[in-house]
């Protein structure tokens, strides 16, 4: 499909791509510009593409109304811990399911894989009960432990397994012949080779944790412990009336840094994801 195109075809193609780009760019554009508008201008019709009276009040209000910096930190550190933990758990078990032969392997793999089929909404009530028994309600533990060990990490394990299967096994066998134990083989030989898959899993996992919404609203109740998605829905006046520009300012603050990181590292992002072994 990578043949040269005629200039006319190129022009058409650019046109199509530009039109298709609108719904991907416009929301972010609107979010950022509207956060700079006074509330009265947000619903001006037709919409203003640039704020007529730009102001930064809303951004100041974000930090006044909520411990937003703290909440930012919460989301960030939870996502990082979950990512590192998931990488460890999924690389180990993905490797074992791909490479090591042990009794009950297939059954156990299916058992683990079944976690993919269980939406978190299904188990949220009993999980709440369990964490309550452990005295861990209104702490970050449920948001860290469940993704690392429970259903969300299963996709990661699946990706890792697929990747390890696709790796040629000769190097590892050579290492084994040289007397390396299983863990050393995994750690020194297989893991360094699996960087692309690890990258993909890291991105998936980070975004999943970063996006969690139902779990935080169920498990957390102190504003200092809130995560960002939860905090975003909190920007209302005393009686639930939304404070649109403040909410949009908070949403912008949530989205922009990640977007910037993404744009800088987009090559690693996209290509890392492409090599997930999800090709079959």
């Amino acid at each position, binding site marked *: 499909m990578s043949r040269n195109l005629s200039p006319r075809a190129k022009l058409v193609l650019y046109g199509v791509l530009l039109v298709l780009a609108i719904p991907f760019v416009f929301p972010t554009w609107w979010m950022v510009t509207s956060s700079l508008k006074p509330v009265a201008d947000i619903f001006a019709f037709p919409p203003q593409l640039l704020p007529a009276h730009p102001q930064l009040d809303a951004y100041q209000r974000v930090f006044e109304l909520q411990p937003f910096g703290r909440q930012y930190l919460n989301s960030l550190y939870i996502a990082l811990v979950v990512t590192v933990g998931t990488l460890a758990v999924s690389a180990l078990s993905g490797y074992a399911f791909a490479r090591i032969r042990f009794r009950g392997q297939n059954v156990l793999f299916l058992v683990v894989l079944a976690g993919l089929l269980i939406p978190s909404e*299904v188990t949220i009530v009993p999980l709440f009960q369990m964490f309550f028994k452990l005295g861990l309600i209104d702490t970050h533990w449920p948001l860290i432990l469940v993704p690392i*060990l429970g259903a969300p990490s299963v996709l990661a394990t699946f990706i890792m397994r697929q990747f390890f299967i696709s790796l040629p096994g000769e190097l590892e066998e050579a290492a084994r012949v040289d007397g*390396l*134990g*299983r863990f050393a083989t995994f750690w020194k030989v297989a893991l360094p080779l699996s960087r692309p898959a690890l990258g993909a899993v890291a991105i998936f996992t980070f975004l999943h944790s970063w996006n969690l919404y139902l779990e935080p609203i169920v498990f957390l109740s102190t504003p200092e412990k809130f995560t960002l998605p939860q905090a975003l829905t909190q920007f209302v006046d005393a009686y639930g009336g939304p404070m649109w520009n403040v909410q949009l300012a908070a949403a912008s603050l949530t989205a922009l840094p990640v*977007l910037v990181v993404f744009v800088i590292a987009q090559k690693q992002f996209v*290509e890392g994801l492409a090599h997930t072994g999800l090709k079959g």
Partner: protein
Amino acid sequence: MSQTDIRVGGAQAPPTAARPPRPWWTSRRRDQLAGYLFIAPQLIGSLLFVFLPLVLVVWYSLHEWNVLAGTFDFVGPDNYSALADDPNLGSMLRATGLFSVGLVVFNLALALLLAVLLNQRLRGTIVFRTIFFSPVVVSLVAWTIVWGFLLQDNGGVNGLLDTIGVDGPNWLRGEGTAMFSVIIVQVFKNVGLNMVLFLAALQGVPAELYEAAEVDGASRMRQFWRITVPLISPTILLTSIITVVGSLQVFAQIAVLTQGGPGTSTTVLVYYLYQQAFQFHHFGYGATLSILLFGIVLALTVLQWQMRKRWVFHES
């Protein structure tokens, strides 16, 4: 913690091997043990955070649980017969099906279209790839809140349509357009993911095949259906499984955009479950709906997995 255990186990393995092994302590057994230790964290986690809660959900589904009064009474299959008689069951299943089918069709079609467009020899495709992928990294709730504003009757979408002379509908208030809106918002959010996977698959298709087809005089369309689609069919299958399973778990979007309305037109299973359990406090009935959800996901996955034999071109 468990990781450290494994590391110790693994590191100790070579010295053990140096000793004269006891008859049953073969290297094969040792390897088996390593296997069990490697999967232990995941397996224990699954049992603790997936299967135990699932068993508990089954247990709850046999009870009438009044949270406020603090009563928890065994009612046997009552919740299941209530499910069968639920007047909302039909519309809820219909909405769920519509959402899933709509999401999969639009998502895969758009992802494939974008991937094909970006696979052309063209300057600046990386810029577009970045643009199409960017919503994936935007927080879901932020994305949905913004679309909620844009889809208002006097919101940005209709404002844009107005500039090209189109009088847009009241997106979130019409029965058909509300469902369409929720689907589209979700498609734009995540289509980049599938697009990237397709792009990688497309780049894996050998160029010689197209050259040969060109020589045979096959049209581009024909090449696409005869060469491209079959060769990337494993990716299509996997993305479709992930998208379908994901579509059944849609929650934040519905909660922010439509709250299940207008009428019950966007009340999908998960949202209904949330309503019953956490809003109407029917935890027993909510648990019963969880079981239904689990059954549907299971059935769909088995079905898709079976279908792979039929239409997936090759298996690695």
